[in-house]
């Protein structure tokens, strides 16, 4: 399907390469540690963080439990406010809908707000094939797009690039796409940002069609919300005549009031700020007399594996994710391997559980993802909607090696155990990779012993079953066994 990075090696091989890239490792370490420290401070300002987290979890769970009802309500509200709602079962359908909508305007270019959903469906490539140029307008996405590259972090997609590389990309590529970089461009961040400002402004001012995702959709009012920093989001949501928003069906919250939870937890978890510089909300279209914002609004609701994920009783909690990226920044495996190793638009711990669910575990890269973790639990601890990522990881590992019932494209099927299959080999190689990097594992375990005391919980049955029937290959598995013994298979962690 679209969104799989074709030709990507499975996690262990990609991670192996990343670990040996010193620049990448240095950048990542700096980034994740900086954001991690700042986040802890921003969260500590909120004495009711635990309650906000619980409310966020409950709101999302409730919404998922009644998702059909809320989808219909959202559709009614958006329509009543002057928007048009489209439904897309998969990436191909979503891309076709967007391409047709753009063509109907007679335009051949669109400006884009950074959006995971459109990356997931490979929208830019699909539009390009139809002769439509999609310009990314987030600075990091611009760096990635000009560098003919892939994003490597949810929040700071170009974190794998340093300033020298960015200068070279701008100097070399900008003229190909529009306004060239200024003569004598240096590598200071301020100058680089200025070059991007000038390059993109020319595009914003003439753009007739904007494409965005959304962080939230309010069923009650039909309101969409985009949270950002740079103002490129506001540009794309305000200046064009036509706005097309492509949003996963799980992004709904029932009421306007619910935003009070997420507008407090998302910025602090994500950029570690009290509030991100800009948040825009819009409800349908505004009347043409005031001409405030797009006069035509299309909402494309995408499934693309989400209903299959919803069908999994353990795995469905991944749909609570608000894409804050906090779990990436605390993950010892992500820190060393980098985002590209995950081979999907969703990297890090959330990617390790979301991608194999959205896409199934048929490919080698997807089968290996549930192993891209030391199960240390740090991701669970920081998650503002309390997704138990380790629980889902273990559940998915069991699915890979033991098979079992899953839902694929809406149909119940029974997966065969992957024994002797490439998937299992991939899985085992991944496990071996993690265990042969004791640094990664140790960091994980230290965090684990601290956090488990605060969050007593046990690993679910599947984890025990998996460990009982599989012996991890060769000696490097030792730390895992130690951990297993110390915690009595995950049961004795509440001390």
């Amino acid at each position, binding site marked *: 399907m679209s969104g799989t990075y074709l030709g990507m090696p499975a996690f262990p091989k990609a991670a192996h390469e990343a670990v040996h890239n010193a620049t990448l490792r240095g950048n990542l370490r700096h980034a994740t540690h*900086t954001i991690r420290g700042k986040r802890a401070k921003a969260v500590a300002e909120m*004495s009711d963080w635990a309650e906000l987290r619980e409310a966020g979890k409950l*709101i999302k769970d409730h919404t998922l439990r009644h998702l*059909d009802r809320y989808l219909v309500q959202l559709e009614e509200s958006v329509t009543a406010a002057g928007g048009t709602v489209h439904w897309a079962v998969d990436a191909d*359908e979503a891309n076709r809908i967007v391409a047709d909508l753009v063509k109907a305007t007679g335009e051949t270019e669109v400006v884009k707000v950074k959006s995971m959903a459109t990356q997931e469906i490979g929208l830019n490539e699909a539009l390009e094939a139809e002769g439509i140029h999609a310009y990314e307008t987030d600075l990091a996405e611009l760096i990635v797009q000009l560098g003919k590259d892939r994003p490597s972090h949810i929040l700071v997609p170009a974190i794998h690039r340093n300033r020298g590389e960015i200068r070279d990309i701008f100097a070399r590529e900008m003229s190909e796409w529009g306004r060239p970089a200024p003569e004598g461009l240096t590598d200071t961040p301020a100058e680089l940002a200025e070059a*991007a400002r000038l390059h993109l402004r020319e595009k914003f001012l003439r753009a007739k069609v904007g494409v965005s995702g959304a962080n939230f959709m309010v069923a009650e009012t039909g309101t969409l919300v985009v949270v950002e920093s740079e103002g490129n989001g*506001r540009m794309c949501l305000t200046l064009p005549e036509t706005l097309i928003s492509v949003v996963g069906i799980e992004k709904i919250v029932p009421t306007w009031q619910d935003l009070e939870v997420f507008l407090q937890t998302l910025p602090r978890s994500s950029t570690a700020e*009290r509030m991100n510089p800009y948040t825009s909300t819009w409800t349908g279209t505004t009347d043409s007399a005031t*001409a*405030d914002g797009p006069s035509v609004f299309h909402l494309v609701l995408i499934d693309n594996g989400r209903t299959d994920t919803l069908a999994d009783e353990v795995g469905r909690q991944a749909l609570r994710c608000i894409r804050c990226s906090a779990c990436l920044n605390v993950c010892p495996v992500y820190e060393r391997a980098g985002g590209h190793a995950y081979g999907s638009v969703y990297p890090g711990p959330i990617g390790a559980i979301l991608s194999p669910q959205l896409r199934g575990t048929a490919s080698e890269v997807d089968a290996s993802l549930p192993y891209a973790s030391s199960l240390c639990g740090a991701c669970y601890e920081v998650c503002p909607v309390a997704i138990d990522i380790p629980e889902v990881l273990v559940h998915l590992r069991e699915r890979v090696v033991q098979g079992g019932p899953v839902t694929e494209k809406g149909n119940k099927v029974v997966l065969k155990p992957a024994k002797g299959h490439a998937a299992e080999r991939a899985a085992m190689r991944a496990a071996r990779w993690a265990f042969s990097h004791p640094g990664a594992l140790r960091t994980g375990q230290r965090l684990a012993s601290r956090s488990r005391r605060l969050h007593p919980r046990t690993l679910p049955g599947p984890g025990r079953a998996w460990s009982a029937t599989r012996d991890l290959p060769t000696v490097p598995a030792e730390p895992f066994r130690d951990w297993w013994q110390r915690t009595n298979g995950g049961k004795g962690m509440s001390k």
Partner: protein
Amino acid sequence: MSSRELILGRVRRALADVQQDDTPYEQAVPRSYLREHGGLGVEETVELLAENLADYRAIVHRTDTAGLAGVIAGMLAAHGSESVLVPPGLPEEWLGVTEVPRVHDSAASTAHELDRVDSVITGCAIAIAETGTIVLDGSPDQGRRRITLVPDHHICVVRVPEQVVSSVPQALERLDPTRPLTWISGPSATSDIELDRVEGVHGPRTLEVVLVTASED
């Protein structure tokens, strides 16, 4: 079958294991978190707003209604502005002192025209102390969303204490979701290059907020 029916059908089948539950939404999600943090008095709340705005690199001024026009004239002069954009409902007296030529926004003005203006002055719908945020809702003293976006210098006037709330929950209560809202916390910023914060990529690079109290008389 339409994709709509297909997706809704898949959702329903996916939830087959979930028990029917008709608890009304207000009860389904208990909200034990705080409505505001700290229980500050009126003066302290305004103080916190000023602090948090400044912490996010907005420039904060304080004055009373009598002094407002002078402060605005001073800001435009200091910024070297040769034109200032005004929304249709901006109080005349705010610009009583400055000589800088005004540009009146209209639905007909294009983004390119706005790009040539040096500064813009608006009121606001509400300001949130805990986060250092001003919220615009497109009322006549704030104008269309684009006028606070394209020019590089935004001056925003907040009437204190009437327009100040403590927290995000209090703000949402007072805002109308059917209006297009823009929440602004400091000037445009990016940390995309090695996490070095740089002000102003696409929005205004300078945000000045004037906190105005009513004059004594």
